[in-house]
Every structure is written in structure tokens, then in C-alpha cells.
């Protein structure tokens, strides 16, 4: 990598650092706000987790260099995300199953 490329990387890392700090501030602020979705905190949970997902993406894409990684790594992660989704969905299936008995 040339010095110019490195300078570009460093500038990008600084920018991402600032974005992550802003994201953290927004998450904390969102937790204090009243979103009032059916008198629950569902709105705050949605906003909080969306910001966390964006922050996670910024870390993975830039610091972990996923934006310029090889296909095989992307495939491994895609498979992992699929099974993670399945794992997170299982509790919801459990809930739906319980509800069908009432």
C-alpha cells in the first residue's frame, strides 16, 4: 500500500470514530425519549437497535475491512448471519406457539 493509500485509510478511520461517537450519543439520547408505541418501549428498542446495527456495520465494514474483503469471507459471514437470524427467531416462534393455545 502506498503512503497516499495509508493517508486515505487514516482519514477514514478518524471519520468513522466520529460517526461512532455520534451514534453512541444518539443511542443514549434515544433511551431517554418517549416514542410511545402502544404505551411500550418498543419504539425506543427499535431506534436503539437500529443505531447499534449501523454502528456495528461501520466497525465491520471499515475497521474489519469487510468492505474490501474477499468473497469467501463474505460467504462465511452470510451463512453465519443466516443461522444467527434463525437462532434469534426461535424465541419468537416459541411465543407464537404459546399464543396459538389461547
Amino acid at each position, binding site marked *: 500500500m502506498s503512503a497516499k493509500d495509508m493517508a486515505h485509510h487514516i482519514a477514514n478511520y478518524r471519520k468513522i470514530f466520529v460517526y461512532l461517537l455520534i451514534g*453512541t450519543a444518539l*443511542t443514549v439520547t*434515544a433511551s431517554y425519549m418517549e416514542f410511545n408505541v402502544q404505551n411500550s418501549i418498543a419504539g425506543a428498542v427499535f431506534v436503539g*437497535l437500529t443505531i447499534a446495527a449501523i454502528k456495528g456495520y461501520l466497525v465491520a465494514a471499515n475497521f474489519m475491512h469487510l468492505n474490501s474483503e474477499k468473497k469467501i469471507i463474505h460467504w462465511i459471514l452470510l451463512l453465519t*448471519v443466516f443461522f444467527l437470524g434463525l437462532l434469534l427467531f426461535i424465541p419468537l416462534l416459541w*411465543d407464537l406457539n404459546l399464543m396459538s393455545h389461547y
Partner: protein
Amino acid sequence: MEIPYNVQVREDTGVYNSKLGIWLFLASEVMLFGGLFSAYILLRTGAPVWPPIGEHGSIMHLLKETIPHATFNTVVLIASSVTMVMAWVSLKMKDLGKFRIYLGTTLICALVFLIVKYFEYSHKIHEGFVPSHDTYMALYFTLTGLHGLHIIGGMIVLGYFFGPGIKMWDNEPERFTNRIEIVGLYWHFVDLVWIFLFPILYLLN
């Protein structure tokens, strides 16, 4: 016998072996934390009140007190991710002096994170909020404890590269740079996990 493809890229995968190895390891880590996140969803959706009210009442008042500490820890961990990636950049630029500074800063950030966590744990345990108090506390200690163990594990590896492991730079600089990239990927993953733990355990209750 020399281990192949530590520096050279394999033609079939397009990456060097250690990188493929760490990504497979991180995939298994995603599932490990994923299982606990799944337990969190199940217990949270099934609880009439969250966090549940136990023998010592609700943890809510303590949680509100610890939000500034947890926010501080989030900033510290994000900063450590930046210094970690900068340590790798320093090696790419063949600047060992800067590498030491950035890696040292990463280690200090990790230590600060653990110290804050120690005070947080002590405070909660002192008030009677132990893992057996309620399901929230059980999840809180399991998730943050497992994450803390990952921080300690990372610190041991980073400490090795800061100390005796740095010798490799003299004879095999490219291999050493790759090693730092690998440990960096692990470190960023630990940061990524915290990015999700922070809102679900401290803020969204």
C-alpha cells in the same frame, strides 16, 4: 516444518490461512453470543415486567446511575478499536515506534474498561443484585462476564505482541503485520459485541 500461507495468499481462497481461520473462529463466536442474545429475547418477551422485580426490588434505579459509566466504557472501547487499527496501519508504514504507542494505548483502554466494569460489578453485588436475583441480572452477568473474559483474552494476546512477540518484526515483518491484523479483527469483534450489549442491557429497559 514451516506453516504454509502465513504471508502468501492462497490462490483458491484469495486470503492467507490465518485470516480465514480467524473469520471462522469469529463466526463461531457470533453463534456463541447469538445464543445468549436469543435467551435474552426469550426471557424479556416472556417477562411481565422488565427488568423483573426481585428480593431487592428493581435494578432500574441502579441502571440509571450506571448509564454514564457504561457510556464512558463504550467510548473507551470504540477508541481502543481505532488505536488497534492504527497499530496495524503503523506496521504497514513500517513505523514500529508508532505501533508500540498505538498498541500500548489499546491495552490501556482495555484495562480502563475492566476497571470501570469492576466498580460497576462491586456496586451491584453490594446492593444485593447478584446473578441469582432475577433473570435480568443472570443475563447481565453472563453476557458482560463473557464479554469481559474476551477482553482479558484479547489483552493477553495484545500484551504478548507488545512484549516478547514483537521480536518477529526483526525477521518476518510481513508475518508479524498479519498477526496484528488477525488480533485486530478479534478486537474489533469484541467492540462490536459491546455495541449491542450496551443498549440492550443499560438503555432499553
